[in-house]
């Protein structure tokens, strides 16, 4: 129901050609709002399932010949991400109320993406997961190619080819799991319980490698991140918000949902590699972001940096040794927290860069200056977003990164190197704030119109939620903690 409401609405919008643009935009907002209400209802009725189980399960056979079924369910890993998805899509719908470029088609496409994203986080079957994974790529391709600017065709093509390569690698890994499991199945809980390939390190390593490549392209981590900056720069701002906020999480979610529980032995064997990739992503992402002059590109690279923290945390979770289970569990909790946090904050920042382009047609930092005078609301909101993103206490980013480092450093002290990443991020955001907002009003900042209501009402709630769960993390942690403890148990087998 939650999954298909947006899809049905999207198809209806696509099929009714005479619908006015205004109606289309408001229908989009209404549908996403109703869907978010449904998700909140789901959350209120949610009770932590037993370890390895799922709440609100639904299962219908789909392709019985290969034991694939339409199997859905939520647990502590997916529920926060589902809620975050609902919030981000609603924010995008509100933001896009001002869009004038083919709003009907855009609404239909985003509702399709909305369904696909929710479906992915709910899926409890590998093939179902893959179907949604692939459809998200197709949907985003059309978003970038259809509503992008700059050189959208090329960026969209690069995005499609890269992530499609990743999805195919993922599929190869899934088939490997299927063939190794006895009886053959694509069902996630069954595979997690069976841990196929347990006694075969080589085959397990190869299958894990295929799955890791698939997820790493999507996440993206160094060295598979090169599709990200052009895709973000040329995508429309709502597209960037969804891409960074929701689609990148599909990769990291795959780590905790698929790779870790199903291939624990291989994961432990390769944990150091994953930790190193995570640390490199953190540092590289931060340093390259520091070198950017284009605001949007800079935020895109900070995504690589933030995703690096998550990869680091899940890598650390595989470093099974003695009494570090509690620390590793904290790291995984921090990773899931970071997924939600990064989703909210980065979506907000991308929407704000959309305002820059909308008003003055440029993302170049040096062309602006002193925006605080003509646009005080924009300046305030952007500053809040930047501070949230660099991990200031009282925002979700702080809680997430604090947990990640507490867990990681306790389990593997070397990982403290990655803390430098936070330092660099802080520097680059402060520099951006200074360049854009402070000083004399000059360049394109002259005559800059301040945020309009639709923009305030889309960006504001995202940052407010980040603040809310930064101050009161308990409700969210109560949901995540049991699930991350389960993941640690599964990896420790």
């Amino acid at each position, binding site marked *: 129901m939650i999954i298909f409401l947006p899809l049905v609405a999207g198809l209806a919008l696509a099929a009714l050609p005479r619908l006015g643009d205004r109606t289309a935009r408001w229908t989009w907002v209404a549908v996403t709002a109703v869907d978010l209400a449904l998700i909140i209802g789901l959350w209120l009725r949610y009770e932590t399932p037993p370890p390895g189980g799922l709440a609100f399960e639904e299962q219908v*056979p*789909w*392709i*019985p*010949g*290969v034991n694939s079924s339409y199997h859905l369910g939520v647990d502590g890993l997916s529920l926060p991400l589902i809620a975050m998805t609902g919030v981000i899509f609603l924010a995008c719908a509100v933001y896009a109320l001002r869009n004038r470029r083919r709003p009907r088609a855009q609404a239909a496409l985003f509702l399709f993406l909305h369904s696909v994203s929710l479906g992915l986080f709910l899926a409890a079957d590998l*093939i179902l997961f*893959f*179907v949604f994974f*692939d*459809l998200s790529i*197709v949907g985003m391709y*059309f978003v970038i*190619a*259809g509503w992008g600017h700059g050189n959208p*065709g090329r960026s969209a*093509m690069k995005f*499609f*080819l890269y992530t*499609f*390569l990743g999805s*195919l*690698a993922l*599929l*190869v890994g899934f*088939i*490997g799991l*299927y*063939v190794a499991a006895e009886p*053959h199945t694509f069902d996630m809980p069954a595979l997690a319980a069976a841990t196929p390939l347990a006694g075969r390190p080589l085959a397990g390593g190869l299958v894990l490698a295929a799955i890791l490549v698939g997820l790493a392209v999507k996440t993206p981590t160094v060295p598979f991140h090169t599709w990200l900056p052009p895709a973000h720069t040329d995508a429309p701002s709502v597209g960037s918000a969804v891409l960074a906020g929701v689609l990148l999480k599909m990769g990291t979610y795959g780590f905790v949902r698929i790779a870790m529980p199903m291939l624990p032995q291989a994961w432990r064997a390769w944990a150091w590699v994953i930790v190193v990739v995570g640390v490199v992503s953190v540092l590289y992402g931060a340093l390259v972001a520091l070198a950017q002059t284009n605001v949007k590109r800079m935020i895109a690279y900070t995504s690589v940096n933030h995703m690096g923290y998550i990869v680091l945390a899940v890598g650390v979770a595989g470093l099974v040794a003695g009494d570090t289970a509690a620390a590793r569990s904290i790291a995984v909790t921090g990773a899931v927290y970071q997924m939600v946090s990064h989703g909210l904050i980065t979506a907000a920042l991308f929407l704000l860069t959309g305002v820059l382009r909308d008003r003055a047609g440029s993302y170049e930092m040096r062309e602006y200056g002193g925006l605080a005078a003509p646009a005080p609301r924009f300046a305030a909101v952007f500053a809040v977003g930047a501070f949230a993103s660099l991990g200031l206490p009282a925002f979700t980013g702080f809680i997430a990164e604090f947990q990640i480092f507490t867990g990681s450093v306790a389990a593997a002290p070397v990982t403290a190197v990655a803390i430098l990443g936070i330092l660099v991020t802080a520097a680059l955001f402060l520099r951006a704030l200074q360049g854009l907002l402070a000083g004399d009003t000059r360049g394109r900042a002259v005559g800059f119109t301040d945020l309009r209501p639709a923009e305030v009402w889309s960006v504001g709630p995202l940052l407010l939620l980040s603040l809310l769960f930064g101050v009161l993390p308990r409700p969210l942690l109560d949901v995540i903690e049991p699930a991350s403890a389960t993941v640690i148990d599964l990896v420790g087998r």
Partner: protein
Amino acid sequence: MQTDMMRPLLLLPEMLLVVGALTALLGGSFVPRHRQWIIRVLTAVVLVAVVGTAAVGLAGPTRTAFDDSFTVDTATGAARIIAAVGTLLVLVLAADEIAGAARESEICALLLFGTAGTVLLAGADDLLVLAVGFLLATIPLYGLIGIVSTAAGAEAAVKTYLLGALLGILLLLGVTVLSGLTGSTGYADLTARLADAPPGAVTAAAVALVAGLVFKAGGVPGHFWVPDAAQGANATAATFLTTVPKIGALVAIYRLVGVLPDTVPWPVLVATVAVASMTWGNLAAYWQSDPRRLLGWSTVSQVGFLLVPVVVAGRSDLALPSLLLYLAGYTVTNIAAFAVTAALPDRRDLADYRGLAAQAPWLAAALVVALLGLVGTPPTVVFIGKLTTATAAWDGGHGWLAVVVFANTLISLFYYLRWIVPTYRRPEPGGHPAERSSAVGRWASRTAVTAAAVSLALGLAGGMVWTAVSGP
């Protein structure tokens, strides 16, 4: 006893096809030019009847007819239905092109003959039936390709004819060698006796037979005619010959390798053909600028994918169902893609497709579904076919083949995107020349949308299709 062994009624769908073809051919001479649509309706009725009778046969148990020379089992039943539905779609698509044309009834007859040949190939359980099916499926193609009297059409027809004659003779040579070695042509006898035959001779004969059938399927090395024919022939013929004959040829290869003893390294042989076909087809499709030629090469690569389950025939339970499922999916999806080119006869270059989405949104959507379907994007049916095919390959001990399948899928994505990208571009200001004369074939675009929708629906209902092709 004699009649019991013959069981002619089991071949009712084939008989319907042949009788229908003869009626169309003769009837066409007696029906006035402006009433030729009667023949087309008759052809359609015959095809619907074939689907019906084949469905009845599919529900029944496996039986053989004419002294075990023709098998009616799940594979035959599925091939009959797929081929008849495919031909029916081609016939609807053809309405724009052949209505009132001079050769309307002849085209109908040739389509029916070709379909009959393909289902004979699919059910053949005897080398002689195989040879007859091959000829019956091939000869109508020469006519269909050459029926347009253009230079390109004539060239394509000659090319097809020469290659067909050469590889047809090879096929007959293979038949001769095998029957000489064993003194029989029935598959049951061959299975029993070939194990003791000299492996070298059996291998040579197997190569010859597979070469002939690969020509029919349009795979490497018998593929040279495919792109020329897809480009040079009219849309009806191009759609038909890149789709329907493959069904029979691939099922026939599947049955044939089941006969071969383990002394013959046929899995390596078929795997080589499969890999060569998908890779060569993909690489050659890369820089084609004519969409029909691009599709022609893409069908060559699809044959490679379709041969993958044949490699693991007998070693994985998934092999036959995944082959049939892939065939069904390929047929509707490929027809959808060709139908789009048929609907837009003025656009003969990928660049001409610019702005199509704004001009004909449904047709553009059908094109995207068809092309992404051919790539194997979920939830279209080809995705399930590719998935089960790769799974079958891995399950049968050829994990590397699954990896090759996906590597090739990635390669193929690029050229399909070359076609999708302009479709969703904004139209050029002032309009493209092809746009001003925007003739859109009504029937062809309906076929495109229908076939694309079927491709999606079959994908979503993948479980039901799988059950149907898995047999009792």
